[in-house]
């Protein structure tokens, strides 16, 4: 099962559904032991989120309209972060995930500097969870220490858990069984996750939608996250 079982994980984000509520960011931080950054530190560019929601104003008063774009790690097929790591702490695994081994990381930050999507965040400090918040830390992940890079993993611990459950029940993994925290929490259901190798999975069908595009695709990064957006206006 673990040997090239043939999964190719991917995500689809429907921007026509996204309301910009930021619930994905909250769910992600809670699931993945992501520390809360102070305003002061955020101002220095040290904000720590594994998914963020970019907001773009399309028009101003009296009819303000905005577009929101949730940006997790793209798990690029050709990830610019990988070749620059001098210690192989970040690499591509068999299931098309851009993996990050925290305990291997020595903190050069080359990977973050080479990421066109700016989705990698760095632990500048040893972060503390004051009681009782420490009680809600997720035991399925380590708490990363100072000097370590971290980023979205597509909730690898949930992928692992679902695979274990399926193998215990002696069956194949079902579509929709792996649900990352952001996907689970999204109120309008704008986020979809699944196996791109399964042509019938919900995410594969979404990815074939004509509204599709990918962020900065021209860079050749081959992102695993596909966005859907209806283009308004008088055509091009």
């Amino acid at each position, binding site marked *: 099962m*673990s*040997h090239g079982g043939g999964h190719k994980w991917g995500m689809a984000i429907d921007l026509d559904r996204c309301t910009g509520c930021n619930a994905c960011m909250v769910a992600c931080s809670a699931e993945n032991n992501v520390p809360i950054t102070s305003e002061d530190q955020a101002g220095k560019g040290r904000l720590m989120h594994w998914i963020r929601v970019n907001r773009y104003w399309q028009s101003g008063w009296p009819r303000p309209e905005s577009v929101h774009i949730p940006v997790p790690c793209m798990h690029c097929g050709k990830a610019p972060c990988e070749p620059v790591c001098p210690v192989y702490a970040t*690499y591509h*695994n*068999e299931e098309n*995930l851009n*993996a990050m*081994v*925290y*305990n*291997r990381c020595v903190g050069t930050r080359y990977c973050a500097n080479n990421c066109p999507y700016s989705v990698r965040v760095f632990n500048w400090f040893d972060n503390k969870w004051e009681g009782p918040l420490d009680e809600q830390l997720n035991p*399925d*992940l*380590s*708490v990363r220490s100072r000097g370590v890079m971290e980023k979205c993993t597509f909730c*690898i*611990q949930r992928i*692992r858990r679902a695979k*274990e459950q399926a193998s*215990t029940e002696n069956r194949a993994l079902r579509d929709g069984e792996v649900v990352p925290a952001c996907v689970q929490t999204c109120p309008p259901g704008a986020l979809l996750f699944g196996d791109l190798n399964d042509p019938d999975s919900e995410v594969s069908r979404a990815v074939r939608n004509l509204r599709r595009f990918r962020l900065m695709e021209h860079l050749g990064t081959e992102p695993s996250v596909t966005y859907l957006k209806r283009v308004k206006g008088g055509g091009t």
Partner: protein
Amino acid sequence: MNRPILLAVLLSLFAATAFPPGEASALSGQPVPFSHKTHVAGNGIDCRFCHIYATRSASAGIPSVAKCMSCHRVVAAGNPSVKLVARAADEKRAIAWNRVAKLPDHVYFPHHKMVNAGVPCLFCHPGVDQAVETVQKRAFTMGWCMACHRQRGVSIDCWTCHK
């Protein structure tokens, strides 16, 4: 003036040689002197009878006080150590056992996967069946995990074990 420091250095040197790195300390000092030897070697109780989650979940689990009392309401009820267990049961309190076999926080180890694949408990926890005080004699190094995984064709992807 420097004598206490010297003493401390000598002691720590002794400790370092007595317990090489990676080897768990023998001085676990459990709140109740629990002997695997009495229970396993002496009375033939199966590991899984007490560590019931080993075949079902990532952690093997430590038996509850209620489980101890299912025997000890009757068996050796007068033993002073068993009385400590009985008191905990009466006060509805868990015994705060100290960990013995432990991996660092960044490693994921699913017992059920390996136990159900037929790796015997004592292969990884050698001598526990004969231990008066529980010790972890085998060091859980990454190389050791990898060697068996390679040999048996199990995944050696970093994200299989690291979290």
